[in-house]
């Protein structure tokens, strides 16, 4: 079992599952799957060796890392770092963050013939090897504007143990003109600041994700 599950090992009436479980299946026969959508399940605590092996020191060759740049690429180098916080204010050490963005000209990899910049990254929190370090850190370039009136921004997808369905958010950059961004303008004004990364030092940004509470990050229904 997982270390985090061992605290608060409460008693629970196993027979009470909050409702009837009335499904039947005959495991010896072929039952065609119903045609509807496959439901989501949590990513669980043990994704690292499958999804983010390199960062955790596992042997599988990594498809995607947290480093989206090499020396040949055009655009301003930036770093985005942050932590994910649960409802108690504790940093989550087993979340997976995926990043999707356009290149410095505002083109996504799938819409441009220039595949030099993949625009996709992935990292687990708690991966940096340092004891207690629960940050995610992405090394990338500042994306260009991707639509009229838009401000430069990056899409993040968040998965973790305890999350039944993944969450999607969008990162904006302090100092940019955000006044006419088509996405941000649909977010309730009081919550917009949860989507704005702070510039700590030039081109080094901090973006924390809060799953609950007063500072709960805006997530989108996509």
């Amino acid at each position: 079992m997982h270390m985090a599950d061992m605290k608060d090992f409460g008693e629970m009436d196993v027979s009470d599952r909050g409702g009837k479980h009335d499904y039947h299946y005959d495991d010896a026969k072929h039952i065609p799957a119903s045609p509807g959508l496959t439901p989501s399940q949590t990513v669980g605590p043990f994704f690292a060796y499958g999804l983010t092996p390199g960062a955790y020191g596992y042997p599988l060759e990594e498809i995607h890392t947290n480093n989206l740049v090499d020396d040949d690429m055009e655009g301003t180098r930036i770093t985005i770092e942050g932590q994910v916080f649960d409802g108690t204010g504790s940093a989550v050490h087993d979340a997976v963050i995926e990043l999707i963005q356009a290149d410095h000209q505002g083109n996504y990899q799938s819409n441009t013939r220039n595949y030099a910049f993949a625009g996709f990254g992935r990292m687990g929190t708690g991966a940096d090897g340092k004891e207690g370090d629960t940050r995610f850190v992405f090394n990338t370039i500042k994306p260009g504007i991707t639509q009229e009136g838009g401000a430069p921004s990056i899409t993040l997808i968040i998965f973790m143990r305890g999350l039944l369905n993944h969450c999607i958010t969008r990162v904006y950059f302090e100092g940019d003109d955000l006044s006419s961004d088509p996405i941000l303008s649909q977010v309730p004004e009081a919550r917009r600041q949860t989507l704005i990364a702070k510039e700590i030092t030039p081109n080094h940004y901090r973006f924390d994700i809060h799953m609950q509470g007063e500072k709960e990050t805006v997530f989108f229904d996509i």
Partner: protein
Amino acid sequence: MRDIKRGRDWSQMLGQLFEDYKSSRIRSPQQPPVKLDGGWDNALSFAPKWPQLPDSDADLTINARVDGDPIGERIIVEGFIRDENGKPVPNALIEIWQANAAGRYIHKEELHPAPLDPNFTGAGRCISADDGSYRFITIKPGSYPWGNHRNAWRPAHIHFSIFGIGLAQRLVTQMYFPGDPTLPYDPIFNSTPDAEIRNRLISQFSMEDTVPEWAHCYKFDIVLAGQYATPFEEGHAHG
């Protein structure tokens, strides 16, 4: 093509909080997700070119071999990735991970006192073909205990991560096995309240595709939401 105004099909899900699944109490968002009336950019239709993957990436019985075969029942896990209209999803990246036959994960934080298998890591990946088909060879995982409640056991399962065409087709889920007696007791499986919907996660044993003297075959078809239309053709709306 779907309209972004639809959002996700929440009618098929519980939502984000299921009290019985303890860690969801402090990790699930409490605000409803913001529904958009258009305005999203081409991140919606993002479909990267995945790198070419070696065949061995999809065979978990050989991709971590050290000095012998992994222990346990060899199984084929295969199926089709389609959207809700029956259209195949080609070029989808499918990544799987699982425990070994004893129900032990190699993850460093795993504490279950079941043996590790030196010839098995339990991670694999492949890319769906033009007809949406995929195929893995692996070992049937064991059930394993966890601390959600007293005597809690996860049913035997294989984790799946699918990256199809665009954000609508990003899915992380788990595949279960028919006849598993622990399924009625698992809060994660039961977080989907409708039995007919959660039963879609149970693979089907296929005698026809079981290979004699070699491996049982389990079928697991995955149905993704229809992809969103690409908001802007050929780059961005910059005139």
